[in-house]
């Protein structure tokens, strides 16, 4: 039982909805409980598509293959059902929700997880929020700001990590969390992920990144290289290091 992967992807083909452009051409991937995986790849390789698709983004359509999460077909589920089942996507471009404070947003998200008639305990919620912010070294005033509205790149990404901390996912998908961050912000965000990972060792993390630098701070157990909609190489952390020195050139021909 403990050996069954938490997420299992088989021969996944996907295209942009409303268009005939196939982006994923047969992806296979297994993630086990508590593992940290990284998928690296050049722009346009399909790695972000994979992350969004796993969270149920309406812009993509699966044309073939299967995705099994905790033994169940996840492709049948709506994005909110996937979230409630424990899948979390940290967005590359977090969306603004003007007029809605982070606290209110998170309270609504947590309330949505409860059965009808059940009400979230506001004091418990407040305690949880404050302690999560403390762990992530965030100013409590941050919780009163409208979600992503007028945020800097770094603030947006930290907000994603805060949401991850509050929603306590089983599977965290981190879509280019390092993009647009300077090195200080990158460290803060990576530190946050590491702490959450320590607190919850059973959490599985899939990091999507173009650059190796995030992996200096978050150590993956497995690294995969994705090129042109396929995973072309998988291995340990050494794969990332090889990429750092050699670049993606070698794989472009492999993927072709």
């Amino acid at each position, binding site marked *: 039982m403990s050996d069954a992967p938490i997420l299992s992807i088989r021969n996944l083909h996907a295209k942009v909805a409303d268009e005939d452009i196939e982006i994923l051409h047969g992806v296979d991937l297994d993630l086990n409980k508590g593992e940290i995986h990284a998928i690296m790849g050049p722009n346009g390789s399909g790695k972000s598509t994979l992350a969004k698709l796993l*969270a*149920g*983004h*309406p*812009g993509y359509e699966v044309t073939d293959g299967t995705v099994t999460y905790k033994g169940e077909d996840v492709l049948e589920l*709506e*994005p*909110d059902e*996937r*979230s*409630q089942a424990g899948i*979390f*996507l940290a*967005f590359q471009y*977090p*969306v*603004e*929700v*003007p*007029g*809605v404070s982070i606290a*209110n*947003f998170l309270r*609504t*998200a*947590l309330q*949505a*997880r409860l059965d009808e008639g059940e009400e979230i305990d506001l004091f418990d919620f407040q305690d949880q929020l404050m302690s999560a912010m403390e762990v992530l070294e965030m100013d409590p005033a941050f919780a009163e700001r*409208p979600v992503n509205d007028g945020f800097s790149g770094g603030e947006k990404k930290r907000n994603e990590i805060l*949401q991850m901390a509050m*929603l306590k996912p089983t599977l965290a998908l981190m879509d280019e969390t390092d993009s647009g961050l300077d090195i200080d912000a990158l460290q803060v965000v990576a530190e946050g992920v590491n702490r959450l990972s320590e607190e919850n060792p059973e959490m599985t993390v899939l990091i999507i990144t173009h650059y190796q630098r995030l992996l200096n701070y978050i150590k993956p157990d497995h690294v995969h290289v994705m090129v042109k909609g396929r995973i072309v190489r998988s291995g340990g952390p050494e794969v990332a290091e090889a990429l750092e020195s050699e670049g993606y050139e070698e794989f472009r021909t492999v993927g072709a």
Partner: protein
Amino acid sequence: MPQNEVVQDLGLDEYKYHFITEDEPVFRSGRGLNEKVVREISAQKDEPQWMLDFRLKALEIYNSKPMPTWGGDLSNLENVLEDIFFYVRPQDKMEHSWDDVPPNIKETFERLGIPEAEQKVLAGVGAQYESEMVYHSLKKEWDDKGVIFDSIEDGLKNHPELFREYFGTVIPAADNKFSAMNAAVWSGGSFVYIPKGVELDTPLQAYFRVNQEQMGQFERTLIIAEEGSKAHYIEGCTAPVYSTESFHSGVIEIVVKPGAHFRYTTIQNWSNNMYNLVTQRAMVHENATMEWLDGNLGSKLTMKYPSCYLMGEGAHGSVLSIAYSGDGQHQDTGGKVVHAAPNTTSQIVSKSISKGTGRSTYRGLCQVHEGATNAKSNVECDALLINETSRTDTYPYIEIEEKKSNIGHEATVSKVGDEQLFYLMSRGMSEEEAMALIVRGFIEPIAKLLPLEYAVELNRLIELEMEGSVG
């Protein structure tokens, strides 16, 4: 309890207070509007001759004015008006204590939460049932301070000179076709007088509803805020659903004397067969402030543009509004500010939400007269479209005769985007919950100015309205 309750599935755009209680009006005018009806109304109210003359003159004006051809679709309105009872009076006498209110009327109030409101020290609840005040309580401290908060009829009876000095001065009968109609057949509404220097911490509240099939409601409110006074008046309306079209045309006149501060808050949630054509205007004198806070939900068509005439130097006016248009509804709303004196300032903030085939129109006028130097005005209108079929239009009219003035206008239209919905849903919210949260955030800048219980009620209404918004 004789009761004919119509219960429907509270789905998309179903009206929240969809119930009807049976009662027997003491007096009901014939259908349609004519001199006989006007004379009957005046006689029923035992009015002085000058008021009858005023009404008859207004009727003439009404008949002489064509239907407006701008704004919303009024093409079916003439037919509607032929079928309306212009006056219905449920009871003979005013009620002053809750115990005296007859049970069937009480039940209507109970369903609307009036008793709780009463218990919650809201005090001064003047509830309008059909065309008359039937229940009216006034906090003792207000009496002591000389504040008058009466039905409009009692205002005329008990304070004839004060009444006559101001009545019809802010909005003359001839202002527009519907102000003329109201002037001819007005019935019900409030008369408020705040003496010099008196500040009220607790808002004055009137809560009323229309409850007689095909009855037009023509409430008339007159408010005078004397020099240096400060007060807040809150009005909330709701009406049950009927299959035939219904009509509401109110007139609200407010005089804000030098240095006074007055806020008028309305949350209207009419049933979606209602024509709601309201004229509300304030004369704002030197260094005085007038704030309109206006929430329009429901109705078939609403045309309403609260206005501030800034008559004295340093006067300030603001019009903050939220409009929600569901399927088949049209909210044609906005605001009007007239800068007639130097150093006057104004602000119009309008937020509209259109869902399904709903349509929201912002229509605003900012006028700066010559000599109104250093006038400043800022207009901001934001529209949110929920579906592809929703519609919004913006008509900002700006007329400036004074070069030394500063007028700003900003308009935004946003659609609830797939990416935004996905973001919220990926956090576990259903599409409806996500939609409701986005809408709540959108109106938050105005909703936060409402008293808490109204903000909560508004949020609840929005949630109900967002049910079934998906697809």
